C-alpha cells in the first residue's frame, strides 16, 4: 500500500514524542548555568603549572627545560629561562621559568605538553569559563595565572594526581637514598678533598628523561 512506509515512520515519531514525556532518560536538557553536568575526570581544557606547598613561586615544579615549548604543536608556550638557580620543593637548586606564558587563544588543549614534561610540572585544567574582556592580553596567561596548587590538581584529576604523587614520592625516596649513600661513601673515604655533596646529590636527583635533548 502506498503510504505504508510513511505511516510506519510516523508511528515511530509518535512513540518518541510520547516517550519524551514519560522516560527520564530522554529528558537530557541541562539548564546551564543553574544546573551543571557532573565533572568528568579525564576532561581537559587548558594547561596549568603545578606547585607544591603554599607559595606558588617557591614551589613551582617547572625547571624551564623548554621541552614543552618545543613540542607544543601550535607553539603557544613562551618560556624565558632564569639565569640563577633557586631551590625547588626538594631543596635542590634548579633553574626556574623567569617567564612562562601560555596564549590560551592559540592553545588547542591537546595535552602534548603534559605528556612530554619529565617533571610532572604542567597539567590540564578543567576550567572552561574563561571569557575575558580583553581578547589579546587577557588571554595570555602568565606564570601567576597559570600556577595552581597540587591540591587543585588532586581535586580535578584525583586518580591521575595520586599516581603522579606516588611516582614523585618514589623518585624522591630513591634520590634521598642515593644521596645518603653518596654522603656515607664520602664520609667513609674521609678524604679532605671529598666531592662537594651538593653536586652529587644534584646529579643523582635528576629524574629520568631529563637528559633528553629535544
Amino acid at each position: 500500500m502506498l503510504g505504508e512506509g510513511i505511516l510506519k515512520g510516523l508511528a515511530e515519531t509518535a512513540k518518541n514524542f510520547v516517550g519524551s514525556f514519560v522516560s527520564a532518560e530522554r529528558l537530557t536538557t541541562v539548564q546551564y548555568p543553574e544546573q551543571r553536568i557532573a565533572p568528568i575526570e579525564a576532561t581537559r581544557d587548558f594547561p596549568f603549572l603545578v606547585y607544591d606547598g603554599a607559595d606558588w613561586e617557591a614551589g613551582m615544579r617547572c625547571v624551564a627545560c623548554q621541552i614543552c615549548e618545543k613540542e607544543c604543536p601550535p607553539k603557544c608556550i613562551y618560556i624565558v629561562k632564569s639565569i640563577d638557580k633557586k631551590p625547588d620543593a626538594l631543596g635542590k637548586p634548579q633553574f626556574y621559568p623567569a617567564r612562562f606564558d601560555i596564549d590560551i587563544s592559540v592553545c588547542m588543549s591537546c595535552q602534548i605538553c603534559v605528556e612530554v614534561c619529565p617533571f610532572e610540572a604542567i597539567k590540564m585544567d578543567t576550567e572552561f569559563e574563561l571569557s575575558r574582556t580583553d581578547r589579546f592580553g587577557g588571554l595570555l596567561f602568565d606564570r601567576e595565572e597559570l600556577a595552581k596548587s597540587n591540591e587543585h590538581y588532586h581535586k580535578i584529576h584525583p586518580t591521575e594526581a595520586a599516581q603522579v604523587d606516588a611516582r614523585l614520592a618514589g623518585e624522591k625516596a630513591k634520590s634521598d637514598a642515593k644521596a645518603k649513600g653518596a654522603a656515607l661513601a664520602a664520609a667513609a673515604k674521609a678524604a679532605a678533598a671529598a666531592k662537594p655533596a651538593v653536586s652529587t646529590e644534584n646529579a643523582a636527583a635528576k629524574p629520568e628523561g631529563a637528559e633528553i635533548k629535544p
Partner: protein
Amino acid sequence: MTATHKLVAFESDKTRPDDWNRPQVIEPDGDAELLEVAMGPHHPSTHGVFRMDVALDGERVIRLKPVFGYLHRNHEKIAEGISYLGSMPFTDRLDYVCPLTNNWAYALAVEKLTGQAVPERAEYLRVILGELTRVQNHASSIGFLIQEMGASGTPLMYAFREREKILDLFEELTGARMMCNYMRFGGCRVDATAGWLAATRKVVEGLPGFTEEIERLLCSNEILMARTQGVGILRPDLAVNAGVTGPMLRASGVNYDIRKVDGYGVYNRFNFRVPLGDHWDVYDRFMIRLLEMRESIKILEQALKDIPAGPVMDSKAKIRGFRPKPGEAYGRIESPKGELGFYLISDGGPNPYRYRVRPPSLMNLTVLEDMAIGQNVADVVLIFGSVDIVLGEVDR
C-alpha cells in the same frame, strides 16, 4: 542505465574508448541558454564551505565543477615543521566527525615506518573506538542526508541522540568529545577502566535498537524511495578507476573493504560481513551505511567480549626524542568515509620530511560531476549528501 551486477569491466578496458572515465558530455535541449549557478560556498547543504559551479538547462544539470580550498590551511606543511607527535592532535581536525580513525591511520603509518609493535589490548581498544566512530559517523551521515532531502530535524536528531552517547564515551576515555588525540605510536595514551568498558557495553547494547528505529522510520518511506532510488548512479568500473572508496564504493557493488583486504590491527579476528549495493544509487549508499552500522555493532560486541588485559603502550615506544630511521611508508585504514592513508618520508630527523594525507572525502568527490550530470538540480544536493564528506578533510 544498463546495469550488470558482475564486475567484469577489467578485461574490457583495452577495447574501450580512451575517455571512458571522463564525465559524460550532454547537450542542452534545443538552443536554450545555460544558466550558471554557484551553489555555495555558503549553502546549508554543502556541509561547510564548498562551492559547486553548476550549468543548468532548466532543471537539468549539464556541467558541474566542484571548487575547493575555502578551508585550506596546508596541514601537510604544518606537519613538516613540527615533530611526529605534534601532528597527532592536528589529525583530529581533518575529518572532525571521526577523530579517532584519523589518529589510528596516522599512528598506523608511523608504526609501519618504524616497525613499532602495538600491544594486544591497545589494538582491541582501537577497534572498539574505530567502530564506535563508524557508527556515529554513519548515523549522523544518514541524518544529514535526510535533512538535505527536506526532512528537517527528526532523523538527524535521532542520530545525534545516539551520537551523543558515543561522544560521552569518548570524553570519558580521551578527555575530549571530538578532538580526542588518543592514539600514540605503539599504543594508546591511557588505558580504559573497567567502568568505561561497562559503560561502552551498555551503549552498544542499545545500538541495535537504534538501527531498527532508523529502519522503521526511513527504509520503507515512499518519499525517501522516490527521491533517492535511481538517482546519482555510479558505475562500479568508474568508481574503482576514480579511486572512490568506503561505503560509496561498496554501494556500487565492489567488494573492497580495507578491514578485510589488509586485515590491519586485529580485524581478521572478527566475524563480520561486507554489505554491497545492487543498484549503485543514493538509496543504496544510505542502506549500506545502515547495514555497516549493524556489522560494526557485531564487531563491537566481539571486541568487548574478547578484550584482553595488559599494557596499552609498547614498552619500546618513545614519546620524547622520537626520530624514525630514514625511509618511507604508506599506511592506510578503512575510515568511515573510505580509505584514509598517510604517506610519510623520514630523513632521520625529528620532523617528517614529507607528510601526506590521502583524504577519502576529496577522492570521493572526483565522481560528483559524473553522478550529477543529467539529474535535476534538486537531486544534486542529495547526491552530494550521499558522498558523505567533511570539508576539514577535503581542503586540509
